[in-house]
C-alpha cells in the first residue's frame, strides 16, 4: 500500500481505525526519505527515535488507552525548532553540534497529540533566505525541478511534503518563509496570526515577526495541525490568549456573502503574467462559490520590503549575539584571547547571508542611525498595519499572488540580493501587520512550475483562510498535482 500520497486526514483516519499501524506508517515514510532524499536534501536529519515512538503509540492504542488527535501521524519539523535530544542546527555551522535539552512548546503539543517527529528539515541558515541555498548542510532542491530552488527559508519543509516524504511539516515564517516555499513547491502553507502559535523553542530570527505554522498538501491537513499547535503558552509573553476554534469544523461553511479584496498593489510591475492569469482564474472560482470580490488598496505596500529589511536584521543582530563561541556554539580552535574567540568563532560559524544581516542590523541600531532606520521603520510598520485595519473594514479576506515569480534557478539570485529580497514582496506585509496568511496552489506555468495564491485575513481569523482554501481545493485539483517522481 502506498501511503505517501494519502492526506494527513486520511492517514489519521486509517491509523485510528486500526487499518494502519503507527509503526508501519512511520517506517514507510522513513524508507521513502532514505530512498529519495539524498538528491533532494530536504532533511538535515531523521529521528532515530521515531520508530520506537510509533511502537509506543500502537501499544497504547492496542491496549485501549487514550491516544492523541494525531496519533501515529508522521510530521517533519523545521530544523530551527528545538527538539529535545534531537540535533537542532537552524541550518548553521554555528549549531552543528547543538542538541537542545527541551522541546519547543509546539513540538510538545505535537507529541502530546501523539504525532511522530520523523526528522528535521533543511532551511536557510537561521531562516535568513528565500531559497534554502544558505544552509550549511547544502542546497535543498525543488521536487518539481532539480535545477530550481524550493524557496525558503522553510524550503526543506516544503520540499519534503511536495515529494511525499512527509504528509505534513512544520515551518516558520518571518517574511514569507512558509508561504513562499509552499508556492514554489505547489503545497499549502499557513502563517498563523502573530501570537497564535507559541514561539517558545523557535530559534529566533526576528522575534516580532517570527511565527510557526503548518505546511501540508491541503488546507484540511493544515487545519488538523493547527488544532494541535495553537493556543496560549505561559512561556511566551507574546503568545495570544484568544480562544482557539476547531479549524476543521468550519471548512465546509458556505462562501456566500464573503467579501474578498483584490489587492491592487500586488498586481503591478514585476508580476509574472502566467501567475497573474492563474490568480485571475482563481478569483473566478471563488466568485462561482458565492464570494464577492472588490479591488482594495494597501497603499504602503511599496515600503514593506524596505521596512522588513530594517526591522528583521535589527532584531536578528541582537538575537544572534548569543552565538558567541562560549558554550554550545561553534568555537574557533585558534583564538588566543576573548576578542579573537568572538571574532573567529562568529566568522567561521555564520554564513555570508547571516553576517550580512547582522551587520545591517548592527548598523541600523547604532547610535546616530537608530532614528533614521529602526524608529522610522517601526513607524512605517504601524502605517502598514493601519492599511490592513482599513481594508478589513471593507473586506473579509485579501487575495493576491504569493510570489511575483515561480521558483527561480539555483544560483540565479545568489549574486543579486535585491532580486532575492523581492521574492518576499507580497508576503512580508502580513508579518509586519501580524495578520494570518495562507498560500495554496492555483496553477502550473507552461514550464510546469507551481503557482501560489495568497489569502490574508484579520488577526485570529485563520478559520476563514482555511475554509476558503478548502472550498477552493474542493473545486480545483492543483493541490493534488505531484511533481514527476
Amino acid at each position, binding site marked *: 500500500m502506498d501511503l505517501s500520497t494519502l492526506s494527513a486526514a486520511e492517514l489519521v483516519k486509517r491509523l485510528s481505525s486500526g487499518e494502519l499501524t503507527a509503526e508501519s506508517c512511520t517506517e514507510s515514510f522513513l524508507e521513502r526519505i532514505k530512498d529519495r532524499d539524498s538528491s533532494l536534501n530536504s532533511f538535515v536529519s531523521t529521528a532515530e527515535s521515531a520508530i520506537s515512538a510509533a511502537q509506543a503509540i500502537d501499544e497504547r492504542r492496542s491496549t485501549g488507552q487514550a491516544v492523541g488527535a494525531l496519533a501515529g501521524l508522521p510530521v517533519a519539523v523545521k530544523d530551527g525548532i528545538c527538539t529535545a535530544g534531537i540535533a*537542532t542546527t537552524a541550518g548553521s555551522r554555528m549549531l552543528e553540534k547543538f542538541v537542545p535539552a527541551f522541546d519547543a512548546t509546539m513540538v510538545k503539543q505535537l507529541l502530546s497529540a501523539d504525532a511522530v517527529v520523523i526528522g528535521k528539515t533543511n532551511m536557510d541558515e537561521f531562516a535568513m533566505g528565500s531559497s534554502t541555498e544558505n544552509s550549511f548542510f547544502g542546497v535543498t532542491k525543488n521536487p518539481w525541478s532539480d535545477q530550481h530552488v524550493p524557496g525558503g527559508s522553510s524550503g526543506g519543509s516544503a520540499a519534503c511534503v511536495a515529494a511525499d516524504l512527509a504528509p505534513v511539516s512544520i515551518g516558520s515564517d518571518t517574511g514569507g518563509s512558509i508561504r513562499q516555499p509552499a508556492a514554489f513547491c505547489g503545497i499549502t502553507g499557513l502563517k498563523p496570526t502573530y501570537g497564535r502559535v507559541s514561539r517558545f523553542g523557535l530559534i*529566533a530570527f526576528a522575534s516580532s515577526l517570527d511565527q510557526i505554522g503548518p505546511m501540508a498538501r491541503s488546507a484540511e491537513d493544515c487545519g488538523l495541525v493547527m488544532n494541535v499547535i495553537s493556543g496560549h503558552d505561559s512561556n511566551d509573553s507574546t503568545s495570544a490568549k484568544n480562544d482557539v476554534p476547531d479549524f476543521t469544523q468550519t471548512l465546509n461553511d458556505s462562501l456566500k456573502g464573503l467579501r474578498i479584496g483584490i489587492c491592487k498593489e500586488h498586481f503591478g510591475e514585476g508580476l509574472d503574467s502566467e501567475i497573474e492569469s492563474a490568480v485571475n482564474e482563481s478569483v473566478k472560482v471563488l466568485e462561482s462559490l458565492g464570494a464577492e470580490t472588490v479591488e482594495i488598496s494597501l497603499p504602503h505596500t511599496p515600503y514593506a520590503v524596505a521596512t522588513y529589511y530594517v526591522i528583521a536584521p535589527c532584531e536578528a543582530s*541582537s538575537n544572534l549575539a*548569543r*552565538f558567541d563561541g*562560549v558554550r554550545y556554539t561553534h568555537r574557533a580552535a585558534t583564538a588566543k584571547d576573548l576578542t579573537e574567540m568572538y571574532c573567529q568563532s562568529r566568522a567561521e560559524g555564520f554564513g555570508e547571508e547571516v553576517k550580512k544581516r547582522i551587520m545591517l542590523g548592527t548598523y541600523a541600531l*547604532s547610535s546616530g542611525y537608530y532614528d533614521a532606520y529602526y524608529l522610522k521603520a517601526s513607524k512605517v510598520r504601524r502605517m502598514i498595519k493601519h492599511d490592513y485595519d482599513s481594508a478589513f473594514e471593507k473586506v473579509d479576506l485579501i487575495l493576491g499572488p504569493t510570489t511575483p515569480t515561480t521558483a527561480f534557478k539555483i544560483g540565479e539570485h545568489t549574486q543579486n540580493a535585491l532580486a532575492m529580497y523581492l521574492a518576499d514582496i507580497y508576503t512580508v506585509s502580513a508579518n509586519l501587520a501580524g495578520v494570518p496568511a495562507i498560500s495554496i496552489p492555483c496553477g502550473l506555468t507552461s514550464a510546469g512550475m507551481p503557482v501560489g495564491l495568497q489569502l490574508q485575513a484579520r488577526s485570529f481569523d485563520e478559520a476563514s483562510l482555511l475554509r476558503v482554501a478548502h472550498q477552493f481545493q474542493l473545486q480545483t485539483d492543483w493541490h493534488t498535482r505531484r511533481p514527476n517522481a
Partner: protein
Amino acid sequence: MSETFTSPQFDQATRDAVSNDDVTVIIGLEVHVQLDTESKLFCGCSTEFGAPPNTQTCAVCTGMPGSLPVINERALQLSIKTGLALNCEIARYTKWDRKNYFYPDLPKGYQISQFDKPICGQGYLDITAPKGEFEPRRVELERAHLEEDAGKSMHDESQRGGNSKIDLNRTGTPLLEIVTKPDMRSPAEARAFLTELKLILTYIGVSDCNMQHGNLRCDGNVNLHIKVGGEKIATPIVEIKNMNSFRAAERALGYEAGRQLKLWKQNGKTIADAPKQTRGWNDADQVTTPQREKEESADYRYFPDPDLIAVTIEESEIESIKKEIGRLPAQWRELLIKEHGLKPYDAGVMVGQGAEVVEYFLVVAQGCGNSKMASNWVGQEVLRFLNESGEAIDAYPVSADQMTELLTKVNAGELDQTRAKEVLQEMIDSKIEVQAAMDKLGIKAVDNSEIESLCRQLIDENPDVIQQIKDGNGKAVGALIGKSRKLNPNANPGLVKDTILKMIGA
C-alpha cells in the same frame, strides 16, 4: 544641567591661589539594589545566594536558543513599592529594552533593561546630618529602572593563562538601578544618602541590601566646580566603581575630590578637555586607580525587546501597594521625637537600628508609661548588647514584655536603676524572667517600718555624718546610702535618703 562652563586657561599662580572655599564637590550616585524576590526576573530559577556554581540556572537565564523571558510580577511590585517610598513618579506605561554587548557572563549577548520608559521616574530623598556635619538636603532622583543581573566571571589572576570560570547563578536576578541627580555636595552627604536609602529599602522590605552578597552596589560620579578668576570651571567627571561599603564610598569620593583638585592645579584641564573617566576604588591602598578604558566608547544599541510586551500599571495597583508601605524611617524619627520626647540624635540612632528595634521600643515605652526611661534603656542597654554581640533584636534574650515589666518596677520605685541593671544582667545570663531574677538576687520589697528602723540605725551609728548634713553639706548623705546598701541591698536609696533627712529634720 543648565549651567555652562567656560574652559579658560588660568595660569599656574591663579590656580595655586584657589582655596578649598572656592571648590564645590559635585556627586551623583548610581545604586544597584537586588530586589528580594524568590525567583529571577524572567524565569523561575531561585535567587538564593551561595549555591554551588551553575546550579540555579535554566534554559531562559542561560540564554539557550529558543528560550523566551516571562516577567516576574513580584519584581514589578517591589519596584513600584521602592519608587513610592522614594517619592518617584510611577510609570503608567513601562517597557523593556535590550542593552547589547558581548561578555562571557552575559549569555544572551544582551541584558534586558529599561531605556526610555523606566518603571520609576523622578523622585527625591531628604537627608540630614545627625551631628550637623551638613545642612539638610533634598537629593533629587533621576529615575529607577529594573534590569536583569549578569553572571559572575572568575579570571585566573596568576597570569599563567588558566581558563576563566563563569557562574550563571546570579544571571537574571532582578536589580533596580536607582540614579540620583548630581545633588550631593560632599562625601559625607553621599554616605548619608546611601545610609538613608538602605534604611528605607530595608524598612519597606524590598531588599536585604546585603553588600557582602552584592545585593547593594554603588557607583559614584564626581567632579569639582571651582570658582576662579570670577568664573566657574568644572573638572572632568570621574565614575568610581567598586565602592564596597558606605565607608569605602565616603573615602573614595573624598580621595577623588582631592585628587581632582590636585590634578587641576597641575594641568588646568576642565570638563571640556577630557572625557568621562572610569576609576576603581582600591580599598587596600585607599586610592582610586584608572580602569581599563574600552577601545571605543560603548554603543549599546538599545532597542525595545520584542520578546516582551510593554507593561501597563493601573492606578489601583499603585494604590494597593501604597498601603503596604507603612511608616518610613523619617516618619518614625518624627514620631519618636514628637510623641515620645526623644532627642533627634537618639531618635536617629534608634530608627537606624531597624524597624524591629523601633517596635521593641514602642512596646516598652507604652507598657511602662515612661518613654524617656524606655528610650534610655533601649538606647543604651539593648543597643549596647546588640552592638557587642552583633545580633539582631530578635536574638535579644529579653522580650519587650519582660523589659516592660522590669521598667514598670523601676517606674514604681520598686527597683532603683542600679538594682534594675543587675536584674537585667541576671535575666540575660540565666535566661530567666524579671521575678525569677529578682528572687535569685534576693530582692524583695522593703516596708516602711523596716526602712525607718534601718534609717534609725544609720543615724545612731554615724553621728559625724549627720552633723555634716546638719551643717549644710547635703552631699554627705551619700555615705549613708552606701552603708544602707550593705545593710539591706533591697532598700530603695531614694527612700532611705528622704527618710533620713526627714528624721533629722534637715
